[in-house]
């Protein structure tokens, strides 16, 4: 876990990301220690009980058994308690890690040069899941592996102390169950993922299409065909699962076999040793019965290996998001040449042009949000995107994103200016009403107006608004444009509007018409 000591040229994305978890090695060691002690109790219980009955069968004075009796009971109690403590310790480590990682990822994205495009719901959910998955590696992989190493070694030493060759046999079986089996399990998972990725994508794609487009598919008579396609894709996925299942079946069989072989080896090696007098009978009992408990240590390792792999994939995606900004700067944007915007105070400029002619690009470049030739980033320019974010908080807090000191009256006035007063009056808690994450309980038109209201509250020298009338009917769209124009006149803010629809006559001071370039 001392990843921080490693040089940054480490290739494994998980190792590179682990420092961001800010995990303290001491905490991990404590969790591994507690987990090992818990398992030592289980193994100790088996060993002490084996010794107890073997010795008891020789009918010694009861007093000679008291140590064994007491330790059997103590181990019986200790295990549950220690396991409880271990789970608390490991989850604490994991939660600390996730919390740190989440903060680091946020800061990383906030400082990245490009515009992060983690806006789409699925990408966002994946970001959350990826952070969790990387954090999970502590609880589900690192600590179980540590516990397995400690207790496995301990058991080998215990059995080896009685009969070295039995210790060696146990070591071999533990290696089989603790290394080969998890490796196979991880390979099976990788196989399913690699082979099944395409099929999986097709399955969800077709399923979504069938759900979303069902009416038109039915009317066009294509529904049956697509259902058959779904079945075919599912069969492909099934084939990929088959390949994985063959490997994981082998892994499960070997895991079971390892334990049985350890017991048989102990019997085969131990019985002659007892006959030769090298091993006391009660020791034979320990050597044979202890392995039955030891393999609990390796039982969780296949899952740990799969988790490690999964966390590494998650780490790779997170690193990609944090380090690679080419992906984020955006899809190909139209080139713009020889276009200039004059941002005179109090003026209204309209940028028109067909879809794809670069209106948004021009605005973003003017706001300094996109690097580019001739980017003129004037201080205090504010770009209001068409798909601006409505945060999952109150109406008032959403408006305060523009400016921290927006008062209630100011907020009401701004909402009124864009015609949202009836909407506000209809909200259960007025300005304190919580809006859903990404404003799912706000309609497209309300959302558009809310974003305009927020823009009106910001103190900016220039306001660059992309498609102010989107999702509004013609009358409402014109009203919004009038409000923005009035705002320009009243406050001296330069307002630039990019729109594909005509705006009311006489409102614009300048007009920039963009054309599609071939």
């Amino acid at each position: 876990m001392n990843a921080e000591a490693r040089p940054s040229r480490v290739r494994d994305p998980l190792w590179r990301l682990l420092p961001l978890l800010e995990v303290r090695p001491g905490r991990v060691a404590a969790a591994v220690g507690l987990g090992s002690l818990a398992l030592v109790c289980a193994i100790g219980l088996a060993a002490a009980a084996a010794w107890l009955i073997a010795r008891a069968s020789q009918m010694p004075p009861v007093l000679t058994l008291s140590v064994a009796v007491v330790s059997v009971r103590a181990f019986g109690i200790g295990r549950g308690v220690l396991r409880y403590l271990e789970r608390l310790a490991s989850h604490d480590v994991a939660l600390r890690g996730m919390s740190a990682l989440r903060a680091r990822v946020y800061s990383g994205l906030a400082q990245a040069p490009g515009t992060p495009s983690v806006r789409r719901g699925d990408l966002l959910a994946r970001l959350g899941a990826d952070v969790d998955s990387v954090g999970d590696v502590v609880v589900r992989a690192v600590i179980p592996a540590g516990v397995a190493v400690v207790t496995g070694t301990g058991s080998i030493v215990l059995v080896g102390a009685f009969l070295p060759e039995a210790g060696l046999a146990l070591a071999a079986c533990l290696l089989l169950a603790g290394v080969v089996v998890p490796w196979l399990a991880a390979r099976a998972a990788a196989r399913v993922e690699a082979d099944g990725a395409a099929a999986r994508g097709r399955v969800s794609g077709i399923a979504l299409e069938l759900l979303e487009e069902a009416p038109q598919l039915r009317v066009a008579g294509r529904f049956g065909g697509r259902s058959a396609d779904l079945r075919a894709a599912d069969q492909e996925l099934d084939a990929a699962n088959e390949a994985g299942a063959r490997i994981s079946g082998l892994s499960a069989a070997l895991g079971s076999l390892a334990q049985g072989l350890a017991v048989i080896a102990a019997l085969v090696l131990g019985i002659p040793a007892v006959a030769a007098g090298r091993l006391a009978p009660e020791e034979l009992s320990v050597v044979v019965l202890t392995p039955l408990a030891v393999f609990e240590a390796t039982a969780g390792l296949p899952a740990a290996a799969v988790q490690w792999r999964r966390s590494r994939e998650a780490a790779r995606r997170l690193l990609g998001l944090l380090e690679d900004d080419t992906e984020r700067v955006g899809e190909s944007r139209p080139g713009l040449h020889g276009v200039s915007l004059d941002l005179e105070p109090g003026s209204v400029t309209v940028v028109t042009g067909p879809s794809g002619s670069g209106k948004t690009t021009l605005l973003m470049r003017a706001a300094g949000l996109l690097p580019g030739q001739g980017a003129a980033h004037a201080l205090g320019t504010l770009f209001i995107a068409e798909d601006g974010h409505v945060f999952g908080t109150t109406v008032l807090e959403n408006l305060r994103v523009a400016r921290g000191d927006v008062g209630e009256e100011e907020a009401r006035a701004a909402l009124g200016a864009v015609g949202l007063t009836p909407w506000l009056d209809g909200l259960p808690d007025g300005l304190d009403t919580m809006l859903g994450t990404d404003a799912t309980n706000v309609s497209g038109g309300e959302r558009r107006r809310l974003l305009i209201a927020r823009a009106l509250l910001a103190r900016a020298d220039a306001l660059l608004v992309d498609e102010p009338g989107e999702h509004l009917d013609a009358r409402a769209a014109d009203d919004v444009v009038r409000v923005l124009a009035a705002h320009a006149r009243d406050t001296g803010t330069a307002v630039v509007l990019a729109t594909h629809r005509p705006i009311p006559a006489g409102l614009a001071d300048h007009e920039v018409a963009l054309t599609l370039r071939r």
Partner: protein
Amino acid sequence: MDCEGRHFLRSPPTRKDRRVRPLDPRLRHIRPARSYLTLTVGLGLASAGLVVAQALLIAALLAPVIQEPGVTPAGGLFVALGLVVAGRAVVAWAQERFARRAASRTIADLREQVVTAVAVRPPRGTGSTPDGTAVATLVTRGLDDLEPYLVRYVPQLVLTALLTPALVLVVLWLDWVSAAVVAVTLPLVPIFMVLVGRLTAGASERRLAAVARLGDQVLDLVAGLPTLRAFGRAAGPAERVRALGEASRDATMRTLRVAFLSSMVLELLTTLSVAVVAVGVGLRLVEGQMDLGAAIAVLVLAPEVYLPLRRVGAEFHASVDGVAAAGRALDLLAPSGAAVAAVPEAGPARPAEGAGRPVTLVLDDVHVRAGERGLVAPAGLSARIPLGSGRPGDGRVVALRGPSGSGKSTAVLVALGLVEPDSGQVLLEVAEHPGPSRERHADAGGSRGPGDHPPSTGTRLVPLHEFGREAWWRRVTWVPQRPSTPPGTLRDILHLPPGAEGGLVPPQRTVRVARAARRTGLDDIVRDLPHGWDTRLGLGGTGLSVGQRQRVALTAALLDDSADRPLVVLDEPTAHLDARSEEQILDTVRTWRGEGRTVLVVAHRESLLAIADDVIDVTARPVPGTALTDAEPGAAR
């Protein structure tokens, strides 16, 4: 290993689905699940037999040697033990091998059934469908939760039911005192778990909900980064994210301290019981009251008795999501426990279906309740829409007009037979004998009720469902706002003959496609595509924007045989339509009319209304007795 903890770290509480039945009996309707359960029971029985055999063989090998060192046990016992070990490996292999396969088949089967069942319901936006996003999530990812449930939880459950009683009986046969200890402690395990669970449930759920909210807030901030950055406030929330994380950790740890108690009770009871059995056996051995072989067998079997129950406990939380997913899927299939509805498309066609040639579409006093909006939209819509004959000059443009939310798009869905009106009906006037009937143009009025005009001679009025929706759809071309395209290349979709366009004498089809593409503006788009006409369109035409897909759909609709499909239904797009695109759509509509087809358009803008021959006004009104709370225009699309 730690599924319970993981569950707490991750999932928001799904407790409202918590009629958790460990095994949903409805699952037996899913064929792969049924055969899988049979297999699991078989493997469970085999596993029970092998566990017992292994314990007895170890005892038989070990006991004589301990009692008389120097004795060499019979080689046959070793062979037998070897066979048992191999047998257990085979069972483990089969369980893993077939469990996964059965799981993936069950999931596929459920997915297909859910998709089909949900898809044939009325389209969204009519208030009567389950939340579309939720269904999509369930179908794509939610059902995957079934895998751990089927692969790990169900086998353990079956093992608990089979193995545990069998092992108790064997222990009873070996040593009744130990069996008594086991019989007393075994029921304590579930009892204590339920008790601890009950005590802690309420508090943990409240905290977990808070934790889930904190997690969402962080993601919300990430999602809003571009906005925060535009306002110059992106750096501020970094501290807040950290603070939220710490708060979330505190809350979670408080929950876990309580939640893990139930697992501690489980571990404590099971391990302590094994210890009690071991000590009891040991003490009776000293007294000479017991046989060493039986003692060893009991010692080996005692942990095995508790093992399945412990695993069920460990997997329980992991299974909750699976059970919930299965429950949601099964609910969608049979909402009230009724039999799974058959897909109408799959049913055999009734003999009367599609008989005759529809000449007029009649909407008679159609009302559709728009559920949550407290509106009836459309309300009392009546119209007669004459259908084109496919002869030039015979076409017309019928526009649906009305403010946003008045039910124009719903009216289209009703006319297509995709939405059943809550009252009123959709009828078709059908000509008994093929061949155009000229006289019907006399009553090509806009919005008069069907009662005003008796059916023309030689025609009869048939309710749409009697005519048959399938048959009706074969007569209709529908271009929705967001059209999907079939998979394949553009060339395949439009049946464009292979080869270069503009050869010396291009085939007639090529000429037609080129003309249609020029009209809709598709040719501009194709020119910019990397592979031109051979560009492969992905699922649902991904790779093309909505506007581009619209062009593809318009072009395909232009190429349809106009005599075959007398009605074109067009839901005019509202967003991202510049003057040029608008002109192209008008042009396309005019072409259809010129070909003698009836074009039913949902018109959002004046230009389309201007070329319409008939205009039907669509109005909404509040459901009687319901306050109109959300009259926001635009909310209703």
